[in-house]
């Protein structure tokens, strides 16, 4: 167990942690509600990912800056207020950019507040590390979350509506598999991705074991 008071040196892994090793969705299974709810098209997935990244980075910065000011007893309440502030700002910004997008994402923009990824990062990383690290780490987490959203959104849009980012892919003779843009499709596609990742991890473990046996022989 490393001493939590010593900050991580700024390194590449601070950034990549959120993308691969501790991917918020595929490894930690956090933030599933928006993940399944808004990924019926790739565009919605991208917008949601960017909004979440913005909130992650901003709240991470502020929490890191205020880490000495906020007493331990009220830190969770303080973090939640900070997060809610930035979520409200994002909500207004999206309404100003495009009403259609705001309608498609609906209440799920405001529900970013209760996305455990953000509070988790504020508590576990930003409150213990210098600002630059916090920003980089939060950005990495945001990218990881966006990638996860996109990996669902792209699959669901291609199969469910036969298009990608609204561009028709297969022509008129394609009969879209509408169930994939409906709620059950979200569950199935995420289950499929989790299965693929688990399969990859198992393969890697088996290979490592075989190498060990070969070395021992």
């Amino acid at each position, binding site marked *: 167990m490393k001493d939590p008071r010593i900050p991580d040196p700024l390194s590449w892994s601070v950034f990549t942690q959120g993308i691969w090793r501790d991917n918020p969705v595929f490894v930690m299974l956090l933030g599933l509600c928006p993940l399944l709810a808004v990924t019926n098209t790739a565009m919605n997935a991208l917008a949601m990912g960017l909004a979440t990244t913005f909130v992650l980075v901003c709240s991470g910065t502020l929490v890191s800056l*205020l880490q000495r*000011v*906020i*007493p331990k*007893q*009220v830190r969770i*309440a*303080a973090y939640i*207020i*900070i997060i*809610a*502030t930035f979520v*409200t*700002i994002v909500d*207004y*910004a999206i*309404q*100003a*950019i*495009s*009403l*259609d997008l705001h*309608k498609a994402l609906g209440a799920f923009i405001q529900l970013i507040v209760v996305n455990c990824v953000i509070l988790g990062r504020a508590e576990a990383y930003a409150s213990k590390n210098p600002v630059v690290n916090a920003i980089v780490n939060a950005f990495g987490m945001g990218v990881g979350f966006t990638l996860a959203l996109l990996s669902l959104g792209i699959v669901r849009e291609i199969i*469910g*509506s036969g298009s990608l980012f609204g561009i028709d892919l297969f022509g008129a003779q394609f009969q*879209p598999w*509408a169930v994939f*843009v*409906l709620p059950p499709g979200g569950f199935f596609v995420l289950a499929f991705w989790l299965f693929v990742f688990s399969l990859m991890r198992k393969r890697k473990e088996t290979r490592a074991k075989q190498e060990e046996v070969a070395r021992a022989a």
Partner: protein
Amino acid sequence: MTETAPVPTASPSSLRLIATLAGIAIMSGLLVALAAEFTREPILKNRREALEKAVFTVLPEATARKNFLLNESGLTPLGDDAISEANCYAGYNESGELVGVAIEASARGYQDVVKILYGYNPHTNCILGFTVLQSSETPGLGDRVETDPDFLANFACLEATLNEAGTDLKNQIVTVKNGTKKHPWQIDAISGATVTSTAIGTALQKSTTKLLPLIHKVEPEFAQ
């Protein structure tokens, strides 16, 4: 040497806790207020444009729009920005004549409530068309009400004439089974999306019964 061992920091007074929280709350209040202030104009502009587009879709001849609030006590003209307070929008052509009134209506669909905006011409007593404002109908089935050409053909002129006393419709708008439309006030349902087609019919029926008598009573007031 009397070096004091680092004592664990005593828990701060509750005053300090409250002060910190209050400070953060004030800061966030300011930030949010700023954001709301900066985005108010663009959001209003977006709303106006979205509404304008919807109104001009259901009233194809219109080139200008005015907001009104219509209820039992009469017609109240509203400002251009009072979009959420208004319940009907009058459309005018280039020479400033009234070409129709766009009205919001809603009814229960298959998944959830379907909200539509429809255009009504009080001179010809026709419903000219509708556009879906909000629905979560099944993709590929229920959402065909907006694209199916046979269904949209119902709205070339869907009859909505008042009875002689002007208190109700002469013939209530009703959705009928696919291929059995006989009268100009009937809507021919899409086969495979009967529930959504019926929802459109119900929304129109309820809204016309309530508002058309009022519209005819105050029709001259719509003139620009």
